């Protein structure tokens, strides 16, 4: 049963000829006819776009990509029926709700990605790291070692000094059971630093040897770094960095995401969590004790670092993932001291110091 028609303008999507047509409601359909046009569009499938500034409805139907019906004025009684029967086109509140769902959905998606990057990935990193076979990690370590050469510094060209350092590492290795052979590397560099790479490569820079005041401090630092390797903290740090990047990738380029990604990267890049550091301190001391080595160096070393860095680090403690040096020194001091054993005698220690002295 056809109701009273109103005028519209129709293109069939096949040729650019515009026809003036009569539009009427016919049961479940919108009937468009006249001037050679005769189509029925199911009301349930029609879409409308009240083009901005035009005061005109552009009506289309799902399933026909190109045909368009332009209508300047829709009679009030027809509009009342359309709002009810053509909800996708004329139900204002429903359309607004669709817009809101999009925004809320996108915001939730973005929040989920951020949560994955900042909370999910860090929690998954450790279990995943434990799954990586030792052989694979060892192979990765070789690749990174080659880059250390180019970026941080070249190995110190002094075989006896390298051997001394390896001697200390091997002694700790005998009780640490890393799963792959631990190798020490003494490196020439501008910065005092010690760190572990995947696959059991432990790097110590010459300026750090200069800063250390006793073999006890050296073995404590090495035991701590070796603990990072055996507890798979290094691998976990790597997985965190990559995981954060992947989960935030959907936000980069999408606009506002870049800042977030660089924050996440800085936070995750090969860094250890506060728990990792505490665990490495504990395990390091345990290794030293098992190897019958003096573990007091950890406390004296962190005491000195705390004194040097002073209040700045105290203030930053809440922001940083690392416990402060002072807190770590205290924790180390609370541990029972090991045997009085030193991995290097005073002559060997003096030789290592001389080898690392600035030329």
């Amino acid at each position, binding site marked *: 049963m056809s109701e009273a028609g109103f*005028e519209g303008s129709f*293109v*069939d*999507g*096949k*040729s*650019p*000829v*515009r*026809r*003036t*047509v*009569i539009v009427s409601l016919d049961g479940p359909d919108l009937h468009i*006819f*006249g*001037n050679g046009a005769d189509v029925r569009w199911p009301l349930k499938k029609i879409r409308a776009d009240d*083009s*901005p*500034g*035009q005061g005109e409805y*552009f009506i289309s139907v799902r399933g026909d*990509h*190109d*045909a*368009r019906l332009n209508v300047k004025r829709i009679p009030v009684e027809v509009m009342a029926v359309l709002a009810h029967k053509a909800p996708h086109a004329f139900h204002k509140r429903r359309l607004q709700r669709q817009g809101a769902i*999009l*925004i809320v959905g*996108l*915001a939730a*998606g*973005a*929040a989920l*990605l*951020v949560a994955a990057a900042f909370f999910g990935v860090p929690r998954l990193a450790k279990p995943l790291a434990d799954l990586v076979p030792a052989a694979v990690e060892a*192979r*990765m370590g070789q*690749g*990174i070692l*080659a*880059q250390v050469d*180019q970026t941080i510094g070249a190995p110190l060209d002094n075989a006896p000094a390298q051997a001394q350092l390896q001697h200390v590492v091997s002694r700790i290795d005998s009780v640490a059971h890393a799963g792959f052979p631990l190798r020490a590397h003494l490196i020439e560099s501008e910065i005092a630093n010690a760190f572990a790479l*995947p696959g059991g490569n432990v790097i110590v820079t010459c300026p750090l040897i200069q800063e250390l005041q006793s073999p006890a401090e050296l073995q404590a630092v090495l035991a701590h770094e070796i603990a990072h390797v055996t507890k798979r903290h290094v691998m976990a740090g790597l997985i965190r960095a*990559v995981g954060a*990047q*992947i989960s935030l*990738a*959907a*936000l*980069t*380029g*999408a*606009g*506002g*995401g870049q800042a*977030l990604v660089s924050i996440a990267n800085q936070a995750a890049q090969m860094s250890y969590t506060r728990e990792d550091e505490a665990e490495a301190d504990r395990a390091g001391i345990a290794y030293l004790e098992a190897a019958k080595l003096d573990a007091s160096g950890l406390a004296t070393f962190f005491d000195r670092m705390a004194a040097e860095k002073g209040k700045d680090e105290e203030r930053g403690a809440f922001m940083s993932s690392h416990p402060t040096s002072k807190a770590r020194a205290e924790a180390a001091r609370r541990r029972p001291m090991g045997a009085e054993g030193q991995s290097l005698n005073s002559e060997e220690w003096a030789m290592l110091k001389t080898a690392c002295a600035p030329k």
Partner: protein
Amino acid sequence: MSDDPTTGVPVTAAPAGETLVFSDDIALKGLIGLSFKNLLFTILTLGLYNFWARTEVRRRVWAGTIINGEPLEYRGRGMELFIGFLLVTFCLLLPASLIIGLAHFFLDPGIAGSLVTVLYLAGVYLSCVAIYRARAYLLSRTSWRGIRGHLGPDWGWGFGWSVIGHYLMTAITLGWWSPRMRMKMAYDLWRRTSWGDEKFVFNEGETDKLASGLYGYYALSWFGAAGVFVVAFGMIGALVGGLGLIAGNPEQMDPRMAIAMVAAVYGVLIPALFIAAFISLPYQAAAYRRIADNLRIDKLRFKLDVKSLPLFWLGIGNLLIVIFSLGILSPLAQARSWRFFVRRLSSEGSIDLAAIEQAASRGPSADEGLADAMHVSVLDGGL
């Protein structure tokens, strides 16, 4: 005009040929409100909304572009851009960065380095392909009287190589290839462009002669820019040298003096860039006019009345809008540029609309994602 006997509706028989009249009804004020709404939603969704934001801006600008009393329609959807972006991110960029990362771990540094170089070059090539694909997408989502634009999708890969070749030639010739590049790219793009099944024709095959008329304008802009930069670097040298003499030992330099030096460099360089850009305007305007002059569809020819000075004021206005709104109102600047060209576009001759049919292909589905990921603007492909 007679009446259809069955309905009584006046018959609007299509004339055999129509000329096209371009005008605009773009509501710039409405775009300001839209820009802030988009900003709000973009912040709320940490950037994800921007695909819908851009789509909405286009929809409004297209709807305000009137040809023979009828607006253009933009049919693209935010979701399409979003899907394209996801595809590119997860199928292209992430695997590439994973390969680079793993190569550093597992491969010899030399091999890893060359692999990174190869991937980087592939990225440059893909971003050239992206120019083409983005244009194809945009045309396929633009319709007038229900008929869509169309750019043959099969040539994107070839276009990528041709753009790389042009850029190399431009570098080798210190810029003197660029008028040829501009004309050749316009030729390559427009002769593959159609509206429905009616192809655009670009200069009917005389492309080599096309650029020759542009070289006078280009020489002006090339020598003008060269002169400006010679003077600018001379001034910078004198200023920095003079300040350096006053400051004395560079290692104990007063920080205020260092700031003065940086200010001197930028104080000279930024005006120099502006002057060089200004000198190049006659060339830019001539290139626009020439492309329009050589374009035709059916028996309809185009004219684009673009001159240097209006182009200059357009650029200045847009620059101020973008700077003072911190980029928030850049849709307004885009709309102003669009409107600038629409208002200066006219046509002669006629096009037989009744003979035109819809092209069979619906066009690419989400290809602009590729361009998005490479940060290539759709407008980079020339007019």
